[in-house]
């Protein structure tokens, strides 16, 4: 029986793929398999079974240490053949996005990466992803026998796990260690920020005149109880760390309230805010593109507006 095979180096993403993959598999008359690779594979396998996988292919082969792309793609290509996979869905994490191209090449397959949503149409899975820097959404099918999709984390929602575990399969993969060796891992400078989970998000753009003025914006965030994000320019100038970036190359956020301050509204940024419940924009240029994306707009200088806003949102 043909299968949908799912894998991600992120356990949460792997669960999402297994859970949604089971729904697609049922509709397509396929089975749902998952791959659990590396030292934690047994624990991962149990979780993926509980989230829907009928079969979990487990490998703790020493060559998988460090999850180098050449080795993981080799492992998954072999598992895809053994599982008779028609679709392979991997998480579009950094490792997963890199993996998708190499895996597809091994399988002679077409691939779609950074997939935001998948729909079943006429017996085929159709993947949607941004194109032209986020200006458009392309809907694509893959025509090869095996099809590879790299799906963004959180593209699929999961519900509670179901009782029961998948059948564990331990394939003989005979993997060769990668020539790429991990020397060390080190923490990233700056505190951890999770913009994806922010319920209130304030983003600052090029309207900010000087790095020192960030204190004004930070005071507003504190008063609002919101996280601070920014556009690419501020990261490029190193005014804020990369983990504050919202948009195509940063976080895709889903806050209930998003407030943009001094942001022009280039699509590379707005693509990261389009799932907000309510969008507010403040910009001194009444023709700024950001107002097209806003529910509420204030034409004004952010240096005049922010202090008044800061007072007004206290305790709300």
């Amino acid at each position, binding site marked *: 029986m043909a299968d949908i095979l799912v894998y991600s180096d992120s356990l949460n993403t792997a669960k999402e793929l297994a859970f949604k993959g089971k729904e697609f598999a049922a509709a397509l008359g396929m089975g749902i398999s998952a791959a659990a690779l590396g030292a934690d594979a047994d624990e991962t396998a149990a979780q993926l079974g509980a989230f829907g996988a009928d079969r979990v292919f487990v490998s703790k082969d020493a060559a998988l240490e460090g999850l180098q792309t050449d080795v993981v793609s080799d492992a998954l290509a072999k598992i895809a053949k053994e599982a008779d996979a028609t679709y392979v869905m991997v998480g579009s994490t950094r490792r997963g996005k890199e993996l998708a191209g190499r895996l597809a090449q091994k399988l002679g397959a077409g691939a779609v990466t950074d997939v935001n949503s998948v729909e079943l149409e006429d017996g085929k899975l159709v993947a949607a992803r*941004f194109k032209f*820097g986020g200006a*458009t*959404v392309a809907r694509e099918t893959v025509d090869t026998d095996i099809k590879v999709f790299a799906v963004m984390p959180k593209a699929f929602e999961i519900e509670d796990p179901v009782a029961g575990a998948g059948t564990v399969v331990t394939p003989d993969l005979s993997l060769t260690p990668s020539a790429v060796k991990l020397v060390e891992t080190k923490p990233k400078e700056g505190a951890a920020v999770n913009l994806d989970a922010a319920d209130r998000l304030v983003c600052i753009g090029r309207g900010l005149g000087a790095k020192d003025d960030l204190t004004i914006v930070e005071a507003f965030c504190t008063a609002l109880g919101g996280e601070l994000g920014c556009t690419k320019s501020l990261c490029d100038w190193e005014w804020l760390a990369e983990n504050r970036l919202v948009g*195509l190359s940063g976080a895709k956020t889903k806050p209930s309230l998003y407030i943009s301050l001094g942001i022009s509204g280039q699509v590379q940024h707005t693509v990261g805010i389009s799932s907000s419940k309510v969008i507010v924009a403040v910009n001194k240029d009444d023709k700024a593109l950001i107002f097209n994306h806003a*529910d509420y707009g204030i034409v004004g200088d952010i240096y005049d507006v922010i202090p008044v806003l800061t007072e007004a*949102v206290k305790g709300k």
Partner: protein
Amino acid sequence: MKIIVPVKTNPDLQMVRIKNRQPVLEAVPYILGDLDKNAVEAALQLQAEAGDTQVIALTLNQGNRKIKDTMKEALAMGADEAYIVTDDALVDTDQAGKALAIAKAIETIGGADVIIFGEGSHDGYSGQVGPRVAELLGVPEIGFARKLTPGGPGIQAERSMGDFIEVLEAPLPIVITVASEINEPRIPTLMNIMKAGKKPSTDWTLADLGLEAADVAPKNKILSNLAEEQDRKNIMLEGDVNAQVAALIDALTREGVLEA
């Protein structure tokens, strides 16, 4: 050492307008993408550190009528030589077809020690072509590099994995993709722009690489490519700043996103 930088020239996204949800590409000039410039810059910095190194820029022409001019930018930055593959079959190919043509071109050039891509193209940003080329050439790869240093068994690289940084080393040959944080691409001097026109540039077709149109036929089918519909209230708040903020607080309270 020989470094090949496969670059993509793509429509200037700042100039792409949306009309009836369709992207309008007519009269939009092609440019070298920002990440492609990061890749060229990374190659030039490796060249400066390693010495005795040749940097070759390679591109597939996908409908850019002024591709020689666009590639001159890579040469003006400092690349020593350019190769341009032009063929009608490349206009509508996909990542698999592009990877095949690039891998064949690298082999035809005589191989390379380091092949550096941007982590994705400016317009499509699929990030597939680099890893596909690594597989076709049978070499290892390091994606999303933020720092490259010659040394160790061949090359050392740092890459950012979100919450942490990995330090890796690998022998050559290797495929590297670079993230934008790796460097600030240099802006060519007038002198170097003048010199760029005299640098060698070779034109090939797919036949020169031993390929036919069928070899690069797309494996994916794009059903539609449309701008998302905006469904926002677009209410502009009037009055002085105090009146605007007061009206905003009222509205956000009614929306249920602020507490009364």
